[in-house]
């Protein structure tokens, strides 16, 4: 049984975006990742990171 594909994550702070993306890319099925600015909370930019297996365009 293969692992489930990584889930989209919300509320990811800017300083940890790279690590979350890195972890998502451990799954070789992930071909696209969308990083969308969500809000700035307490001076920290927050992002939604969405991995895609199928071309989202």
């Amino acid at each position, binding site marked *: *049984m293969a*692992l489930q*594909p*990584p*889930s*989209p994550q*919300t509320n990811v702070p800017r300083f940890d975006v790279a690590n979350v993306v890195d*972890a998502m890319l451990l799954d070789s099925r992930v071909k696209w990742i969308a990083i969308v600015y969500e809000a700035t909370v307490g001076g920290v930019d927050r992002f*939604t990171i*969405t991995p895609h297996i199928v071309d989202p365009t």
Partner: protein
Amino acid sequence: MKSRALFLLLTVGMMSSCATQKMSGDQLARVAKDWSLSIRASQVIPVYPLTEDLQPGDVFLVQTPIEEQVAVYLAKGFLPLENLVTRLSPAGYARFYRGWPHVADGDKAPPRPWQFPKDDSPDSDFSRAPIAAFPTYSFSVSRSGGLNLAIPVQSVPVGLNLLDSASANGTITLKDAFTYALPARTMYDAVHQWCRDNADYLSQYGPTEYAADKKLAATKFYLRVINRVYLVKTVDVSLFSNRGFEAGGSAGVPQPVQLLNIANATESAKQFAAVNEILSKATSSTTKDAGSPVGAVEGAAPQPLAVGGTVKLAMATTRSVSLVETFRRPLVIGYLASDYPIEARGKCASPVPTLGVLEGHRAPAGRTIEYQGCDENCARIRPWIKQGANQQTLETWLEQHGGAIAIADLLTGDYAGLRQRVVVELIEALQ
């Protein structure tokens, strides 16, 4: 000849009520599907019934699960827009349509400057709106099959009666088509801001799991947000009779109109004018009812003749008629949208393109989770999986003990207990 045409047109007026009463629910549902399938072929999600009261920023609450959405979409041809929750008015038109004349935000945001260019007139002027073009659709109609109203424009039943035919093939051309939109990125900000402001309201629509006794099914709600709409002002319908007309006929049997008689051009022009005058009288009563609330789709009987418009005869022979129907203002025939899943505590998750899902392109990889931060155990696992075959070891362990969740979910998702086990059972045990 004029009296004969009058007889035919009077039957048109009566036909809608009589036919509607006779048609079964299945036949009416087929009306919606036939029309919707045509529009769907243009990669647009159909609206049924047609309405002008739908615009980017409209937010609908829909409950149908994505898997069921596909089934409903394939069965009905369109997606019911169940509950209109709010109408967002995000600023962004002026920037998106930079340099486009008369496009602004606020009260002058589209479609208002095109819909009501003059304060004292209900007539529209979409000449400055972005135009769109649709292909010509072919269709078949048959009175006996109850499909004579398969297109929600008046021209089809009118044309059938003029042809005096029980069945016909036809083409429909959507002319004077327009489109406008707001980018999904702009809509995303507006939706999430609205979600934050209305978290208490949305929290009642959070997902529920299957009850332990299986008596209560899992539910999931979505906010369907319209990004782009397509409007049409004019519809050309051409009908070609499937059979020839029997000669003779008994008294009182209506005969086909024969307007295109080039041997007598003057008489033809008079007949055209007479028929169009009758048509305008026959259809004028329905123009007052233009537009229907979108939310009334589900469970309501379709109103094939209620969209309202003026019908004019463009051409007629013994075997064919062409009619032009013009709506008072353009009506929305389709849209593009995004679905925002409503998560626990009323939080809105990442959007999913509605059409993409319906066409089988499931965009996101899994359900949305909230970032929990990288705790002490996460900080130990991250460098560890980079070493040797540890990633493979962890994947195997997750398959057996961790519900096969993804490593990314394990690291920063709500899995503190699982991370602790990984540290104890893998990292420390292997040292």
